[in-house]
């Protein structure tokens, strides 16, 4: 169970680290090397994004990675093969991140069966709110997988409880408005919001959007359970190459 894995890990360290990659960017081979570097450097969970042509919730960095991956010929099938290999090779929980249409087109139940067969623990799909997600939730339930739902600073306490009732594994709290990959102010406002999140759910809290360095991670200690680094690792790969991800993660985990 994802939740118990997270809680057990939290006995050993103050805050866990989840990273994100877009499968097939810059290439599938590089993607596998990045996963290897990250796991060796001590990442606790990973999100594997299946690229989509219309990634509405993603900012410029991840958007470009989606487009480049597709241009190079990424398909859902290739992403599945990749995810299967990664999860067999590395002993951390992997999650899928994608958009509704990828699951819809594949067939929700079939998609869930595939995930179970590959031992992918759950999915983050930002454009499926629970109201539109009956089939999705049922499909995840069938194989005891975790549908991860999202809290935002705009979400009311009541709605947080509703989302939590539908979620499993953990809650993904977006730190601010906007899309991925922009600056976040780690401020008093964020504190108040995270306190609200904590009160609304028994599930562990992951915080993402704008988390990029050790300082941000230290800030989140005690307030959240998992720090999520998304765009920043893609930036590192773009600027310094695949190998640089190892040092980057090691520094965060010190």
């Amino acid at each position, binding site marked *: 169970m994802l939740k118990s894995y997270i809680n057990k890990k939290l006995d050993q360290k103050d805050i866990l680290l989840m990273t994100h990659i877009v499968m097939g960017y810059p290439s599938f081979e590089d993607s596998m090397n990045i996963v290897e570097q990250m796991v060796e450097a001590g990442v606790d969970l990973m999100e594997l994004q299946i690229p*989509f*042509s*219309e*990634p*509405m*919730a993603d*900012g410029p960095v991840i*958007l*470009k990675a989606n*487009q480049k991956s*597709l241009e190079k010929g990424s*398909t*859902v099938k290739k992403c599945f093969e990749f995810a299967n290999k990664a999860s067999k090779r590395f002993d951390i929980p992997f999650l899928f991140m994608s*958009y*509704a*249409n*990828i699951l*819809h*087109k*594949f067939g929700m139940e079939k998609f869930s069966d595939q995930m179970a067969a590959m031992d992918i623990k759950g999915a983050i799909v*930002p*454009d*499926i*709110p629970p*109201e*539109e997600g009956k089939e999705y939730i049922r499909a995840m339930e069938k194989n005891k997988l975790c549908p991860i*739902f*999202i*809290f*935002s*600073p*705009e*979400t*009311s306490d009541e*709605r947080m409880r509703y*989302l939590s009732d539908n979620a499993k594994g953990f809650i993904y709290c*977006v730190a601010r*408005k*906007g*899309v991925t990959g*922009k600056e976040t102010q780690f401020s008093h406002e964020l504190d108040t919001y995270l306190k609200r999140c904590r009160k609304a759910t028994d599930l562990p809290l992951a915080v993402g959007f704008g988390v990029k360095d050790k300082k941000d991670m230290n800030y989140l200690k005690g307030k959240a359970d998992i720090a999520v680094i998304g765009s920043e690792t893609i930036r590192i790969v773009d600027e310094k190459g695949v190998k640089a991800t190892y040092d980057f993660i090691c520094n965060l985990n010190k």
Partner: protein
Amino acid sequence: MKDRGYYGQYGGAFLPEILTTTFDELEAIFNSIKNDPCFWKEYKSLMSSYSCRPTPLTFAENLTDHFNGAKIYIKREDLNHTGAHKANNVMGQGLLVKKMGKKRVIAETGAGQHGVATATMAAKFGFDCTIYMGEVDVLRQRPNVFWMEQLGAEVISVKDGTRILKDAINEAFRDWVENMDTTHYVLGTACGPHPFPEMVTFFQSIIGQEARNQILEIEGKLPARVYACVGGGSNAMGLFSGFLNDPVELVGVEAGGKGLNSGKHASRLSSKDASCGIAQGYKTYFLQDSDGQMKETHSISAGLDYVGVSPILSKMHDMKEARFESATDDDVVKALRFTMQKEGIIPALESAHAFAFAFKEAGNLSKDDIIIINQSGRGDKDIFTVADAFDDPKWKQFIIEKALEYKKNA
């Protein structure tokens, strides 16, 4: 949100969590006005003083004589302020923005007509305005970019994806998820998450209401068929709305591009190439591959080359409540030229799709029959595209000389 806006299996609101509250608010304000006769009066009064409503229903006598079949009438949405039906939707949403107390509007645009309409509304109501437009469309519809900027809007050229309408919609959403406190997204067609399909149709229904009254007044009877082009579906839904409970055949004409077998088109309902999908916040027929990735679309007209289509029209398609056809780029250019020569009327390239297909059928109908073609907009904006299609040597010479003049003075 109380209602999720489903039409059969299509529609819904596939929203990122951050926008949930914004959509609750939008749905609430729309629900508060949609059955309020005072609001509709305010709206009609604005449209008759700031735009040109009711727009005329023109009898096309020469076209009728030529095809020697049904009597052809043209609903003149081109005579709206800013030259297209887009103003109907934009002014309606503008009134809602005032009620919500927001100070900034954003919009996507393909042909630029929706962008120009939004920019005028923003100028009139004192809002800041940003327009997202695909890079390909910026080049195709340069005159409209000029006007948007002169009207005080910021025009952002979108260089991601296929660089056309759907990509402009994605960018507008990315802006909105950051700025929803101050900003309303004026979606330009009957697509997107609930309540947009219903709301845009509501404002555009003024077209059909007027057309029905006008034809009954002039002819004393209903038309046999009505024709509208279909991009996202707002002008079609506007016209169709007036005839939903009548024995009138509703015909939507999509962009056939270089032909339905070429793969280079934007026919979602009249070809076999589209399938049910979820993107841009709603479920409908999309032109997509077997993985669910959106395909490239093509049309000579920037306003019709959209990958999705109104969920309301998708349902009408499945239920056979409307018929969907397509017209190719070549047919459209011919129909445009013919309409100008016969009637002295210049339809937009988008609208010319409806003309092209209606021309194919008019001769097969009886002289007792009436058809109405929706002229969703005027063709002036297409001057560069049409001049190229007509390969007009005098126009080319003029552009060359103008460019030289700019160069000399630069």
